[in-house]
């Protein structure tokens, strides 16, 4: 899983990056909010977890969150804001700006692990849902649908197809759906047929 760290404090960024690398994350570090936004935008197709410091040169972490949510509303990004102990009163503003979670600096390794795991779970779930939606869209594209007003003959039950030819109802349906027909005779028709055969048999031949 890709992780982007944005923090202008190189001590903080180094501890965070090394800790995440030990947990086998693919880590990139930047020290500036504008660069963080550009990197996230160019990686929009890849599920990414970003850990953004609140106070950064050029663009604050909360503003990075706001822009990502505005410009890439469907991107699979899990955004975490880093705030100092004194900055906890800004947590609500950070979450409203589009962050998914926050961490108070300096992070506790156990808490970092737990919160990052939540992010990984959310991103994995989003990815699976997106794959499922793609599968369903593909399936839907292949489904033949029968709908609309069909001109049907009241006597022989043939249907007038798009090419103006009258065709058997079963041919019409078979061509436009995945339905298949087995042929048989229903009891009322079987009785009618029997009576017809009997009439023909008993009718004097030759005239």
């Amino acid at each position, binding site marked *: 899983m890709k992780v982007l760290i944005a923090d*202008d*404090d*190189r*001590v*903080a960024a*180094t*501890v965070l990056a*090394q*800790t995440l690398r*030990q947990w086998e994350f693919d880590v990139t570090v930047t020290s500036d909010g504008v660069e963080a936004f550009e990197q996230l935008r160019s990686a929009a197709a890849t599920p990414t977890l970003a850990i953004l410091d609140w*106070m950064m040169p050029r663009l604050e972490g909360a503003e990075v969150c706001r822009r990502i949510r505005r410009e890439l509303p469907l991107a699979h990004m899990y955004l975490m804001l880093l705030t*100092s*102990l*004194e900055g906890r009163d800004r947590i609500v503003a950070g979450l409203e700006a589009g962050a998914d979670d926050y961490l108070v*600096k*300096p992070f506790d*390794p156990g808490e970092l692990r737990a919160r990052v795991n939540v992010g990984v779970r959310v991103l994995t779930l989003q990815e699976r849902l997106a794959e499922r939606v793609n599968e369903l869209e593909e399936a839907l594209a292949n489904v033949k649908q029968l709908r609309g007003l069909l001109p049907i003959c009241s006597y022989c039950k043939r249907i007038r197809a798009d090419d103006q030819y009258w065709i058997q109802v079963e041919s019409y349906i078979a061509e436009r759906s995945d339905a298949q027909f087995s042929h048989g005779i229903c009891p009322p028709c079987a009785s009618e047929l029997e009576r017809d055969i009997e009439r023909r048999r008993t009718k004097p031949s030759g005239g």
Partner: protein
Amino acid sequence: MTADLTPILDVAALERQTGGDVGLRREIVQMFLEDCPQRIDAIGVALAQGDLTEVVSSSHALKGSAAYMKASIVRERAADLETAAREGRPADAAARLDELRAAVGRLLPELEKLIA
């Protein structure tokens, strides 16, 4: 009173923060030893020029690094300085900078010992 009992550097906490990775600990201690004097100088210059925005920025950065170093006294002094500058009290900020310098003066030799 509590500040007197607080160690200038909590080595055990620093070890926990770096997950027992001696290489990482050495790396960040060296970074801090390089950055901290530069930040103190930058704060002094900014304060002399009345640039409280720069004082806020540099003291905030120093506060963050000190927190990872587990140097809570330096962290608190930097936080006090940041607050004074943010609230536009340059005289108070100057007094807070003196306290920060004193705390940093105690911290840096301890960090140097750690990587000697």
